[in-house]
């Protein structure tokens, strides 16, 4: 079996496991996996910036949290919000804010870009933390999860944990397919060209600013999708979902999994969240283990877990080659 075929069958096997998981897994793990798949969308969206366009954002939680707040603010107190109105509204809000922030932050690059994205995310954090807009530092509860409603006809609600699981799985696969298509298009190639050498892309006639802005808005919108789902699952929003720890964690997932691949961030989201779950069950001081683990990964695995898998796969292929 060659390398790509090996990776592909591995991916297919993973999807199959995810499809069957709620049948076998406990309620706890079904919920945990739902959360992980939401975070996978978040991580893939960030990877579009970090891994493919070369824009390291440390403020990606801004769009994640904003969409969550839109859902919370639009939800009626004791009734289900309509998926058909709140989801597009949340995505539009994330996209618009990403457009506004993108226009400003993309004027900078390198270290400045990292810091400036961080600062804008902090601005949103304080907007929700210091004003009464979103319930201040206490946040807002979402008592009833949204339902799909078309003129009174309700095909499904997301109250059931299993329905939410499959809904999230479907969206995660859709985002994966969408990003895959985007990355194979001329637009996606141009982004990768910008990462490799922006000067050259510009001299080839690409208006690189517009490409970067489009990538920033797309990534922000997808982060919004993930934040919408997360707010729904947690049942509340507070300023912490916009905090820079959130941005740091998702960046960690991307790096841990291996940036510049779409499967990498998903792998990273799984590894990071499951490890956190494991460490939390081991000790009260789990952050010590998690922090130590992060330090170790940076020192030992510069290309992340996905890089490790790929390395093992090529090693396998090479050994086969020698045997023949």
């Amino acid at each position: 079996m060659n390398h790509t075929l090996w990776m592909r069958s591995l991916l297919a096997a993973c999807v199959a496991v995810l499809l069957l998981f709620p049948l076998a897994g406990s309620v706890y793990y079904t919920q945990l996996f739902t959360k992980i798949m939401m975070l996978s969308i978040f991580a893939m969206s960030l990877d579009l910036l970090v891994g493919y366009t070369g824009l390291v954002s440390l403020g990606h939680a801004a769009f994640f949290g904003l969409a969550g707040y839109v859902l919370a603010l639009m939800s009626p107190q004791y009734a289900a919000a309509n998926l058909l109105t709140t989801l597009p509204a949340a995505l539009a809000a994330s996209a618009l804010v990403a457009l506004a922030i993108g226009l400003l932050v993309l004027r900078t690059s390198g270290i400045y870009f990292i810091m400036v994205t961080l600062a804008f995310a902090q601005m949103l954090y304080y907007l929700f933390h210091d004003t009464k807009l979103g319930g201040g530092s206490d946040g807002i509860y979402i008592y009833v999860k949204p339902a799909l409603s078309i003129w009174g006809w309700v095909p499904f609600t997301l109250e059931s944990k299993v329905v939410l699981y499959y809904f999230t799985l479907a969206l995660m696969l859709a985002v994966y397919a969408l990003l895959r298509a985007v990355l194979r298009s001329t637009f996606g190639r141009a982004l990768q060209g910008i990462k490799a050498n922006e000067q050259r892309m510009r001299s080839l006639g690409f208006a690189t600013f517009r490409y970067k802005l489009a990538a920033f808005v797309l990534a922000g919108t997808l982060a919004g999708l993930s934040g919408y789902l997360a707010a729904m699952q947690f049942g509340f929003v507070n300023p912490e979902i916009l905090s820079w720890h959130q941005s740091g964690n998702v960046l960690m997932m991307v790096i841990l999994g291996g940036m510049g691949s779409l499967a990498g961030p998903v792998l990273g989201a799984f590894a990071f969240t499951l490890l956190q779950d494991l460490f939390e069950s081991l000790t009260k001081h789990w952050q010590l283990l998690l922090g130590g683990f992060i330090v170790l990964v940076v020192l030992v695995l510069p290309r992340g877990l996905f890089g490790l898998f790929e390395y093992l796969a090529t090693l396998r292929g090479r050994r086969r080659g020698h045997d023949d």
Partner: protein
Amino acid sequence: MDFYSFLIQLLNAVQYGLLLFLLASGLTLIFGIMGIINLAHGSFYMIGAYLAFSLTALTGNLWTAILLGLPLSVVFGVVLEWLLMRRLYARDHLDQVLLTYGLILVFEEMRSVVWGNDVHSVPIPKLVDFSIPLTENLSYQAYRLVISAVCLVIAGAMYWLIQRTRLGMMIRAGASNREMAQSLGINVRLLFSLVFALGVALAAFAGMLAAPVSAVFPNMGGHILIICFVVVVIGGIGSVRGAMVAALMIGLADTFGKVLLPEAAGIAVYLLMALVLLWRPQGLFGRQ
């Protein structure tokens, strides 16, 4: 706002700004010279404050605590540079962000193991534990003036170090062109080690000075870290002078923001940064 309350706010703003300068100057040097994004800088501030708490309890005096704590933080900085930072120089900024992010978690949890999660206070040294009366019911804490004065002395010393000494010349050379400095025979490795230790010591010192007025509490490094980044970005990466100007600007924006528009106080600082960057993307004193 009458004159004396204005004066009090102004003094507070300057004191906060000068304290930020201590933190931000180390951060900007580490950025500018070593090319390292150090998210763990806030942790050094926190460690300084906790050292001040423990050592003051041990020796009974903040001044002796600082005298003991400073060498400790220098050693800590040198060891950290030797153990971890050294491996990051050739790496991407991304790896630096991650590694130092991991360090924050480690330091924060070690703090929890060693000192617990309670809020502590540190007594103001007896000699300066009084207030200066301004009007019948307004007065100003003398210790805050001491903080400002000490920070100004440090700022002066740094100016002298960077502009007037041989070491400062090397630091400036390293900041403007690392490879060239190395090829001219400057021991860049040693220089980096020194700069990092200096940055750690400055941050820890800021934490020790601030401990009596701000209290000592978990996660105290997190908030101040982000503000310091704002200072560095506004001032221009690598510019100590820029850090001073930006730190005072932020001190004023934050303090008067809290007085005039308490609802939007948190945002004022970031708004200021956005405006400066719109005008000059490389910061006030940054090179293009």
